[in-house]
């Protein structure tokens, strides 16, 4: 579904992505993990088009999207939820979702968008908050909104950037259920996460990054047993 080949990006002297190779298979939930500063968020920014790579290629559904703008990627079915929730504060929850529903898929009418929004509101449990201004939501509700807004663009592949961060364990498990339901509806998911219980509960496959490089790949058990991964997480701090 998504194929990343030799993707590289430097910021001044810092290499944020070094020849990253990655494949996301249709229908799977793929986790990208790694210590702070490993280049995970840079990878998502490269994938959603907010920053341009210095080298390498990104292929989505068989098309080269390396140089496509963020909006074109969205139209092709690439959805994204941000780590730091960025709702449109002066709009209600419903209006926030309308933006994604109207523009995520070109040619969506106001009527069709309203239906998509209503479905997503019910799916994500935001019914009671639908007409609340986004600036007044709690963190959990903000996170739900972030996810819901990405879902409204009707993505084929959903990129989730630490959407569980800051949630209490019970809330995180609720969010896990939501992501599972999303996948069940036919959406492929790539997510970045720090919380290992969440990774274990969700991921079919795990990719580990460190210093802008992919250092391991496999099932949760495989990467958890990998020596390089243990070193990346524990070695330097121990």
């Amino acid at each position, binding site marked *: 579904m998504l194929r990343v080949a030799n993707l590289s990006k430097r910021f001044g002297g810092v290499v944020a992505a070094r020849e990253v190779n990655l494949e996301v298979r249709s229908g799977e939930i793929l986790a990208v993990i790694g210590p702070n500063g490993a280049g995970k968020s840079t990878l998502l920014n490269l994938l*959603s*088009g*907010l920053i341009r790579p210095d080298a390498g290629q990104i292929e989505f559904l068989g098309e080269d999207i390396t140089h496509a*703008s*963020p*909006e074109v990627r*969205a*139209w092709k079915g690439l959805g*994204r939820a*941000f780590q730091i929730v*960025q709702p*449109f*504060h*002066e*709009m*209600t929850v419903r*209006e926030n979702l*309308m*933006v*994604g529903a*109207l*523009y*995520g*898929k*070109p040619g969506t009418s*106001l009527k069709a968008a309203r239906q998509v929004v209503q479905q997503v509101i019910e799916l994500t449990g935001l019914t009671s908050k639908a*007409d609340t*201004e*986004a600036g007044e939501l709690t963190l959990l509700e903000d996170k739900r909104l972030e996810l819901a*807004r*990405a879902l409204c*663009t009707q993505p084929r592949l959903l990129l989730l950037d630490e959407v569980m961060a800051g949630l209490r364990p019970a809330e995180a498990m609720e969010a896990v259920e939501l992501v599972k339901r999303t996948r069940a509806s036919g959406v492929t998911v790539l997510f970045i996460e720090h919380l290992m219980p969440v990774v274990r509960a969700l991921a079919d496959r795990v990719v580990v990054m460190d210093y802008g490089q992919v250092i391991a790949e496999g099932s949760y058990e495989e990467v958890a047993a990998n020596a390089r991964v243990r070193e990346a997480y524990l070695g330097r701090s121990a």
Partner: protein
Amino acid sequence: MMLAAVLLFLALVLPGLPLGQWRAFALDTAQFAFLISGLALAWDLLARTGQLSLAHGAFFGLGAYAAALSAPALGTVPALLVGGAVAALSSLLLGLATLRLQGMYFAIATLAFSEVMRTLVLKAQFTGGSIGLPVQPAFGGAYPLGGYYLAVAVLVICTLASLLLSRSRLHYAMAATRQGEAVARVLGVPVVRVKLVTFMISAFLAGLAGGVYAMKTLFLSPYDAFGLGRAVEALVIPIFGGLYTTTGPLLGGLIIVSLETWLRLRIGEGYLVVYGVVLVLTILFLPKGLMSLFARRKGARHA
């Protein structure tokens, strides 16, 4: 909506009211207030995409000159459309060069544009240069109230454009662009195109108002038509009335122009002091302008 209908009714019947010796003055002030309110409504459209323009005085001036120069050949209404089209075309060129800039930088670019336009009109021959340009009245003076009703029509058009846009698909794109450009793009909003289209609609309406203004004052000079004062007024009125709304700039424009005219009569140039105080008080105590006085409105929905 109600308010707009009431105002329209008042505007239509105003020439028929028994105003005695004040009639000509009232009509003249009202006509000016309609045009400036139209300009403020036009400015607010672009503001909804998060861009602060100081070029709207220049669009108004370009519309005025273009309409004045083309009216003898084309007739009144086509000339007004030419005025709007010239303003829209110049906004397209300015926008292609500057709309990727944000906030302060865009504002400075539009300020520079205004100065360039004034200088061009000042130095050109066919505009009358610094001597100025005499303008024919609307419809060659055949209808004494022609100019007045054209101003009413311009205000109706600007109000309708503002209302329709706040109920359209574009409304969501504009509000999203203003509140978070990167997020909007990731959600599929083509923000550059949205800004450019809005800029052109906004400039067209400003140019339209400028054309009617030319046929009202009957004489244009680059200093008046491209003065920074009007660019400032175009943004002060929506801030005073309530940004990103239709009622705000509409009501704000009528109040500010009336107040300004009345103060000018009473205390001459001292009106600027009162004007300043009113603005400071508004910004301090009514962060959403006059709209703060109405029932609290939610977010991106506009009256």
